[in-house]
């Protein structure tokens, strides 16, 4: 512990700066509404360690920052949701309840611990109609932002959010929404991350039971092929919703599994810890 006096304001400022720096080191994650629900896109070199996850039937989770920290939040969220769904009814588990749980936990850690969590989290819930969709963005200090249409977080979050805001339109098709997300995630003139390094998932309101679906392999490639054919064509006709059979049975190892995890859990030596 440092010796001497620091004002509470100073301590809070230092903690916030510290957390912001940690979060800014990673790449961004984008969440946005499309015609059938909510799309999550994250550049992520790992196929096994996810930044995007299912929490419950209608609720998805995306996070940036330190992997071990947001993984703990993810597990806590799944437990909260499963407990409430089992105690009451599956329909009684809401994104708002989960966002509040995260906010109180993040806020408590920010004020009480020496080190705040270096994470930023999105809790998204898909409704029966697009008016029922909700995207909550939570920051390391427990603030909750009720986002409309889209949210960006992580490193370069402001630039990414700016590019998202320019291109985002209501009720885009899935392919168009993916195109917008990828454009937002790519610096102007920069190169897009290859398919193998993209983590993409949707909450599709047309699915039965559980709305969360990870888009991988051939399905993702087909979707990306659609986007490159019509680069951000504004008046593209709404494509038919993709057929969504239940998640494919677990498959064996892929051909090129990159060994690294999402940024944040990899100690690159620059961390002050």
């Amino acid at each position, binding site marked *: 512990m440092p010796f001497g006096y620091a004002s509470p304001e100073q301590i809070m400022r230092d903690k916030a700066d510290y957390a912001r720096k940690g979060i800014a080191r990673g790449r961004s994650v984008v969440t946005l509404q499309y015609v059938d629900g909510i799309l999550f896109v994250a550049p992520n070199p790992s196929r*096994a360690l*996810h930044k995007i*996850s*299912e*929490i419950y039937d209608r609720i998805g989770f995306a996070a940036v920052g330190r992997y071990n920290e947001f993984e*703990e*939040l993810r*597990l*806590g969220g*799944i*437990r*909260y949701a*499963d*407990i*409430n*769904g*089992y*105690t*009451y009814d599956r329909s*009684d588990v*809401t994104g708002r*309840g989960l966002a*509040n*749980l995260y906010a*109180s*936990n993040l806020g408590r850690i920010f004020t009480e611990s020496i080190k705040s969590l270096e994470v930023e989290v999105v809790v998204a819930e898909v409704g029966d109609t697009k008016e029922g969709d909700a995207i909550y963005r939570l920051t390391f200090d427990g603030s909750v932002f009720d986002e409309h249409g889209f949210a960006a977080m992580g490193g370069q979050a402001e630039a990414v959010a700016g590019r998202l805001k320019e291109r985002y339109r209501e009720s885009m098709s899935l392919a168009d929404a993916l195109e917008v997300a990828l454009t937002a995630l790519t610096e102007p003139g920069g190169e897009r991350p290859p398919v193998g390094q993209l983590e993409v998932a949707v909450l599709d309101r047309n699915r039965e*039971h*559980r709305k969360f679906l990870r888009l991988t392999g051939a399905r993702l490639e087909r979707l990306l092929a659609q986007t490159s054919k019509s680069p951000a064509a504004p008046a593209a006709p709404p494509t038919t919703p993709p057929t969504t*059979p*239940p*998640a494919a*049975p*677990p498959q064996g190892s892929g051909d090129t599994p990159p060994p690294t995890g999402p940024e944040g859990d990899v100690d690159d030596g620059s961390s002050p810890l």
Partner: protein
Amino acid sequence: MASHRDLPVGLVNHLFQNTGSSSFTEFVGSYAPDLLPRRDEVLATPIGDQVPHATTIVAATFAGGVVMAGDRRATSGNIISQRDVEKVFRADDYSCMGIAGTASTGIEFARLYRVELEHYEKVEGRSMSVQGKANRLATMIRGNLGMAMQGLVVVPLFAAYDPDRDEGRIFSYDVAGGPYERERFDAIGSGSIFARGSLKKLYRDGASADDMAMTLIQALYDAADDDSATGGPDVTRKIWPIVSVIDADGFRRLSEEEVYGYVQQMLEARLISPDGPIAPLR
């Protein structure tokens, strides 16, 4: 909505900090044990006959999958307590369970079991192996042994599509657990002896899902024919058995119209030969 805010702070932290196994049942057992199906209390007198019982469930494999069907009758002693009860439940995308015995306990099991499988899948990022699913169910049944001795017996039949083998698998249980893997077909409940006899004659190796659904409906009819606790197709109220198919495409519950198609076909044939299709003698 009641939420974490009703809980003491210590329990909220528990949600985040006590990362144990991926089992929802184990977690809920330490976090809120009263939510689990009753385990240890012993009733003064067995009340088995006073609560509704669910009866016959049948399941059979086909080429590349498995079909499960259940009748719709629940009885309390000799009273029919419900005519359209559902006893075949989707567990996850690739499995389902049917229950026979105490209906309330069975429904509770089915609800908990679904969360158990999903919880594991979300936490681990992969679905549980079929054998793992069967074993988890066995543990839950074992936990209910005390209540079973008091007459609250519940016995499930579990069916799943195994992606590693590209085939359907069936597991049955007794009140002390199990699981016992069954080749080809099995039936549980009071009508099961009759259904199993029927299935024995009608089962064909390598049949289609369509044929196997028909076979199960025939077997349920035969069970209802001889067992008063098993309900046959209710023509006047239009209540048909529940039929679920699981294959590589996942779990699918047949629609009312689809099942009605099979039932109608069967009933027409039974008007001519009431005992149903005849298996070859040699």
